[in-house]
């Protein structure tokens, strides 16, 4: 029997069993929605990284890096980790302080606006469904590629796994399985890429060889005409999408909602710094590793399969099976997070159910319905993992980022301003994407939907704010966010948190060092 199929089946059964065991301890919606608000730092780190890294990284980013835009993607990848550093300190800990169950609930409470809560919930739902679609397509592609099973059957199998896991154990189970999966895919990715480069003659030898034979692969400009025809345009795109993905890491529902489960605000801040570190490690290893696989000149039907090709051709079978299982884990961990958020939000933000048992039943039903909808979308649409993932991320950046920042740091933005900003950003970005897609336009970089959506958000926020005044209730809610609970003032905890945040300053130097040593210097000195 196919060893990759065996590995996948064993892992899927294991996750389901873990889900059922944890599910026995889920007694209330507090457990299901926010894991009892007792999550320690390491579980938050595991869930943050696992919910971020999915099939998009291993297929989309790896494929594009292999094909010719490594440098723009690496710049984007290093920029985005700032989202964690800023997210924990400037947004996440305030979110946790609000004691809300969801981020839409937080907006509704902060601005005393049920309408804003509903709008946030709708935009969240749309964004997550889009992103979940990309993830399921990635999982289906992965399973079909390595096992030979039909793609549509693979989608159904994967869906059953993560739906059962989410329905049975909710956020508690998702946190624990996310952390297990994070450990698995991080370790095996580093090991496999190292072995592949050793097989190719060593990391530095491959970089030197590519500098001479295919310099465009590792060049700052990327391969011209792959994305945009000039390096400058590629860099503008990379900078813009560095901001987009920074926004995702800072405020996206599948990231910031982890902080709602933290045992305290120190866990929020520390976990965000650690997540920044681990996400950079994975971004660098996967993207640079994929680019270096050009050394082997594989014949690929689809460049997005490059990591799978390496796992099934360059490393021992057992290790390849673990790697493939690790990528599957990356996909499942993201999907379970998305489903748990959908279920929680449907019950918490759209309905007003008082009975605890009825709430739990409804949230489980919402998860199943969402899974079926996404399955049908994946069933009838061909995979476009990279671009659908980018669509979901862009919508978050355009509709949520300015409102999230303003909700904490602006005394002047009103509920009308926040509502208009979110709505205009969502429509501006989504509208531009749909128009460009239907009209089959190749937009110039400065008309990218990100710029249009962000501008629309800011215009909406400014107009809405100018036409209205901040109410006493809004003022009171904002002021309450800045009262630090006494329980957070333990001197030892504060010192430990400050040291962790200080480490993020050093992380900048580490990132520069890694890029210089492993890419820039060996590449440029052999041109």
């Amino acid at each position, binding site marked *: 029997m196919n060893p990759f199929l065996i590995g996948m089946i064993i892992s899927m059964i294991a996750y389901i069993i873990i889900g059922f065991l944890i599910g026995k301890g889920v007694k209330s919606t507090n457990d299901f929605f926010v894991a009892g608000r007792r999550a320690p730092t390491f579980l938050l780190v595991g869930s943050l990284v696992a919910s971020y890294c999915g099939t998009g990284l291993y297929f989309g980013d790896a494929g594009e890096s292999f094909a010719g835009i490594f*440098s723009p993607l*690496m*710049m984007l990848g*290093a*920029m985005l*980790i*700032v989202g964690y*550093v*800023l997210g*924990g*300190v*400037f947004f996440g800990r305030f979110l946790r302080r609000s004691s809300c169950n969801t981020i839409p609930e937080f907006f509704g409470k902060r601005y005393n606006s049920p309408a804003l809560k509903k709008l946030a919930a709708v935009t969240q739902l749309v964004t997550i469904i889009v992103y979940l679609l990309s993830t399921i397509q990635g999982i289906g592609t992965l399973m079909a590629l390595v096992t030979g099973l039909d793609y549509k059957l693979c989608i159904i199998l994967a869906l059953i796994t993560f739906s059962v896991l989410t329905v049975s154990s909710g956020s508690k189970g998702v946190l624990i399985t996310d952390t297990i999966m994070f450990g698995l895919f991080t370790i095996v990715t580093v090991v496999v890429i190292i072995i592949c480069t050793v097989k190719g003659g060593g990391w530095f030898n491959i970089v030197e060889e590519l500098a001479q034979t295919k310099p465009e692969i*590792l*060049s*700052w*400009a990327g391969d011209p005409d792959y994305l945009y025809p000039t*390096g400058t345009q590629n860099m503008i795109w990379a900078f813009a999408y560095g901001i987009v993905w920074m926004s995702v890491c800072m405020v996206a529902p599948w990231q910031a909602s982890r902080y709602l489960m933290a045992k305290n605000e120190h866990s929020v*801040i520390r976990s965000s710094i650690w997540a*920044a570190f681990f996400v950079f490690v994975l971004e660098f290893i996967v993207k640079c590793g994929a680019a270096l696989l050009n050394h082997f000149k594989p014949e690929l039907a689809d460049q997005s399969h490059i990591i799978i090709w390496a796992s099934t051709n360059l490393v021992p079978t057992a290790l390849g099976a673990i790697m493939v299982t690790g990528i599957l884990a990356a996909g499942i961990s993201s999907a379970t997070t998305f489903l748990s958020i959908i279920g929680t939000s449907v019950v918490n933000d759209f309905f007003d159910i008082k009975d605890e048992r009825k709430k739990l039943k409804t949230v489980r039903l919402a998860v199943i319905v969402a899974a079926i909808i996404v399955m049908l979308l994946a069933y009838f649409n061909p995979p476009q993992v990279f671009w659908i993932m980018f669509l979901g991320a862009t919508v978050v950046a355009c509709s949520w980022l300015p409102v999230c920042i303003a909700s904490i740091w602006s005394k002047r933005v009103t509920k009308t301003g926040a509502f208009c900003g979110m709505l205009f950003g969502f429509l501006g970005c989504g509208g531009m994407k749909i128009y460009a897609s239907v009209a089959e336009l190749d937009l110039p970089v400065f008309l990218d939907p990100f710029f249009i959506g962000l501008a629309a958000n800011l215009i909406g926020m400014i107009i809405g704010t100018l036409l209205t005044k901040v109410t006493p209730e809004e003022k009171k809610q904002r002021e309450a966010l800045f009262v*630090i609970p006494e329980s957070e*003032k333990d*001197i030892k905890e*504060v010192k430990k*948190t*400050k040291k962790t*945040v*200080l*480490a*993020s*300053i*050093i*992380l*900048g*130097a580490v*990132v*520069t*060092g890694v*890029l*210089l040593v492993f*890419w*820039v210097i060996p*590449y*440029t000195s052999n041109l």
Partner: protein
Amino acid sequence: MEYAIAIFVGLWISAAGILAYYRIKKDFADTDKADNKQNKAGDQK
């Protein structure tokens, strides 16, 4: 230009770290003062 990218992203990350550190320092300034008072009292004893 590759050098510029590597240095730029490092500065970008460190700048964020500096912002975050000073925010945390400001928010917990009272806790720091209380800690310093305790340490001084301990030293005097």
